[in-house]
C-alpha cells in the first residue's frame, strides 16, 4: 500500500470537485433548496411564520373545562382553534379533515365539565389525518392537555369526595385503589380516529423538516456519487486510467484511492449539509453523535463503492450518467427519501427498509424522533454495512480487473 499515491488520488478528487462550480451547486445548494421546497409541500414548517392550521372543535358541553382543555392548543403558535356550538357526525368530521378544512376535528360531548368534577365518564372524539404531521401534532397537544386534566381530576378525588370542593385541611389518607381507578380509567377519554391512511403512532417526528432534511442529504450524497461514476468511464476512455496503472500505483492503491476519494467527498458533503440543515431549519439529530457519525460514514462508504461499481460497468459517460441518475431516483423513492416510508403500505415499507437508503433514513428517523443510540441503530447499521461490503467487493474486483494487464 502506497499512502502517497492514495493521498494524491484523494487530493485530486477534492481538487476536481472544488473546481467544478456546477457540481458544487448540486452538492450543496440544491439539497437545501429541495429540503425547503419539499418541507413546504409536506405542509409543515417550523421556521418563520407559517400559516396556522385550523382545529375545529364541536363543543356541546360549553363548560369551563372545555376552555382549560383547549388552552394549550390556543397557545400553540401553529394552531388556530375554531369552536362551533353544535354537534357533528363522524362523517362530517372525516370530510372536514379529508378536504383540508381542518387539520383535526375534536368533538366534545355535553358532560365534559361534569366529568372533570367527578361526574359520569365521557368520550371525546378526535379525527385526524395521519398523513399530515400537523394533525399528529394537534393530537399530541390535545392528548397532553387531557392527560393533565385527568391527572388533576384523579388527584382531586384523593382529597375530596366526588362532587365536593376540598377544604384547606381536607387531606385524606392516600387511597391506592381510588388512584389506580382514576389513572387507569380516566373520566375523560380521547377516542382518536385517523382517516385510515397512515399508522404513524410511533415514528416520533413532529416536523416535516425532520424527515426532508436528512432525506435530501442522503439523496444528494448518493446522487453526486452516482453521477460522478462517469468520471471513471471518462478516465478509462481518455487513458488517464492507463497512465495511472503504469505509475507506481498498485491495483490496491488505485482501488483504495478511488474509494477513499469518494468517501471523503461524501463525508464532507454530508457533514456540511447536515450542519446547514441544523442551522437553517433548527434540526436536532438526537443525543447520539456516535450513531449519527456511524450512519453517515456507512452511507458514504456505500455510495462511494456504488459509484466505482457503476463506473466499471458503464461503457460510456452518458450511460453512467443515465444509470446513476435512474438508480438514485429509484433508491430514493423506494427507500423513503422522497416521502417517509411510514406513509407507504407495509409491503413497500419492508422493501424500502431492505435498501440502503431506507436503512439510513430509518436510522435518522430513530435518532431524531425516538432518541435512538448506537444500540437501537445497530440492526439497520448492520444492514447498511452488508450493502457496503457486497457492493465494495464487486466494485473492487471489477476495478482491479480493469487496471490489471
Amino acid at each position, binding site marked *: 500500500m502506497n499512502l502517497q499515491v492514495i493521498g*494524491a488520488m484523494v*487530493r*485530486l478528487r477534492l481538487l*476536481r470537485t472544488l473546481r467544478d462550480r456546477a457540481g458544487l451547486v448540486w452538492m450543496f445548494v440544491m439539497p437545501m433548496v429541495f429540503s425547503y421546497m419539499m418541507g413546504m409541500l409536506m405542509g409543515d414548517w417550523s421556521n418563520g411564520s407559517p400559516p396556522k392550521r385550523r382545529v375545529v372543535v364541536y363543543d356541546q358541553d360549553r363548560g369551563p373545562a372545555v376552555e382549560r382543555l383547549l388552552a394549550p392548543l390556543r397557545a400553540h403558535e401553529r394552531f388556530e382553534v375554531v369552536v362551533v356550538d353544535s354537534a357533528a357526525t363522524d362523517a362530517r368530521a372525516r370530510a372536514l379533515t379529508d378536504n383540508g378544512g381542518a387539520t383535526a376535528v375534536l368533538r366534545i360531548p355535553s358532560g365534559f365539565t361534569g366529568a372533570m368534577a367527578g361526574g359520569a365518564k365521557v368520550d371525546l372524539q378526535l379525527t385526524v389525518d395521519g398523513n399530515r404531521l400537523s394533525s399528529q401534532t394537534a393530537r399530541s397537544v390535545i392528548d397532553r392537555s387531557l392527560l393533565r386534566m385527568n391527572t388533576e381530576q384523579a388527584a382531586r378525588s384523593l382529597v375530596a369526595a366526588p362532587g365536593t370542593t376540598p377544604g384547606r385541611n381536607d387531606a385524606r389518607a392516600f387511597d391506592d385503589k381510588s388512584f389506580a381507578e382514576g389513572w387507569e380509567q380516566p373520566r375523560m377519554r380521547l377516542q382518536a380516529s385517523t382517516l385510515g391512511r397512515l399508522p404513524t403512532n410511533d415514528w416520533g417526528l413532529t416536523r416535516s423538516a425532520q424527515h426532508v432534511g436528512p432525506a435530501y442529504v442522503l439523496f444528494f450524497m448518493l446522487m453526486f456519487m452516482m453521477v460522478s461514476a462517469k468520471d471513471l468511464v471518462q478516465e478509462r476512455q*481518455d487513458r488517464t486510467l*492507463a497512465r495511472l496503472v503504469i505509475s507506481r500505483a498498485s491495483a490496491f492503491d488505485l482501488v483504495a484511492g478511488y474509494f477513499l476519494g469518494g468517501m471523503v467527498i461524501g463525508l464532507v458533503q454530508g457533514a456540511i449539509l447536515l450542519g446547514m440543515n441544523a442551522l437553517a431549519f433548527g434540526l436536532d439529530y438526537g443525543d447520539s453523535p456516535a450513531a449519527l457519525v456511524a450512519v453517515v460514514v456507512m452511507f458514504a462508504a456505500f455510495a462511494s463503492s456504488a459509484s466505482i461499481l457503476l463506473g466499471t460497468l458503464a461503457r460510456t459517460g452518458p450511460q453512467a450518467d443515465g444509470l446513476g441518475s435512474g438508480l438514485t431516483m429509484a433508491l430514493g423513492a423506494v427507500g423513503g427519501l422522497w416521502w417517509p416510508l411510514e406513509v407507504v403500505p407495509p409491503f413497500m415499507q419492508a422493501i424500502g427498509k431492505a435498501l440502503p437508503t431506507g436503512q439510513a433514513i430509518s436510522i435518522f428517523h430513530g435518532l431524531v424522533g425516538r432518541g435512538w443510540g448506537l444500540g437501537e441503530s445497530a440492526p439497520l447499521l448492520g444492514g447498511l454495512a452488508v450493502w457496503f461490503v457486497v457492493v465494495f467487493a464487486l466494485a473492487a474486483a471489477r476495478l482491479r480487473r480493469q487496471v490489471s*494487464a
Partner: protein
Amino acid sequence: MIEVRDLVKKYGSHRAVDGVSFSVARGELFGLLGPNGAGKTTTIGVLSTLLRADGGQVRIGGHDVATAAKDVRRLIGVVPQEIALYTDLSAHDNLMFWGRLHGLGGAALTRRVGDLLAMADLADAARRKVETFSGGMQRRLNLVAGLIHEPEVLFLDEPTVGIDAQARTRILELIAQLGRQGLTVIYTTHYLEEAEQLCDRIGVIDRGRLVALGDKESLISQIGDADMIRLSLPAARHEAFRAASATWEGCTGVGERRGKLEVRTPDGGRLLPVIQDWLRANDLPLEQLEIERPNLETLYLNLTGRGLREDAS
C-alpha cells in the same frame, strides 16, 4: 534496452500482433510505422505492461514485462494517443498530480514541473485549465506528463494526431530534443515523413506483422530501381503506351494504379524526356506527368501493395 521476440497478442481469433521481433538500443529513437489497425498501439500496450502478451517475450532494461511489470514501470513513460490528462484542472495541477503518483514531492517536484512546463512552452499558461488549451498545447502537455518521473524509455503513441502543421512541428522538435538528450524513444505513427525526419531506425508494421526493419537508407535500398514516373492517359491509349515503353532504354516496367500509369526506372531523369517526346508526338497533354523518388511510401507500397494514407483514411 528493449528486446522484443516473437510477440503475439490476440483478441479472440484475431492476431493483432503476430510474431513481431525487434530490439532498440539505449538512446535510440525507434519508429513503428504503419496505418491505423496495423498493431502499433497494441505493441506499445504490451511493451508498457498495459496488455498481457499471448506469446513471445519482451524485456525492457533487462526486466521481463510479464513477470517484472513493477520494475519495467519504473523505467518507462507512456504518452497515449488520447489526451490522458484531467482537462478540468490546470497544466500545473496535472503535472503535480502525476509527479506525486510517481513518488515525487516537495521542492523537487515543483522544480520538475516548472522545467517541464518551460520545455513545453506552457509556463505562461500553467494555471489555465487544460480544456481551454489549443490542440497543440494539450498535445505538448500530454507529452511532458509522460516525462515527469524522468523515465529511461518513452513510448509515444501517435503524439501528433489531430493537430495542425505548426503544432506538429513543435511536437517533433520536442521529441528530437529528447532524442538528443539520450532518451530511448519508441514512436508510433502513420505519417511516414515524421518517421523519416525523426527516427534512427524504423520498423514497418502491417496487419500485426513487422514487414521491414532498418534505418531509412537501408529500407529504401530494398526497393531497388525505385524511381517512379506517373502519368494520366485516356484508357484507350494505355496499350499504345505500353508497347512504346518496351523499346525505351531504362524502363523496367509499367504498372497501373487508380487509373494512372506507373513507369519504374532506375533513373527517372533520363527516361522523363523520352516519355515527354512520345506524348507530344501523340498529341497528349504533359500536365499530368510526375516523378517520384524512392521513399518510405514507395517502400510501404512495395511491401504491402497499399499506400499508408489509404489505410489511415
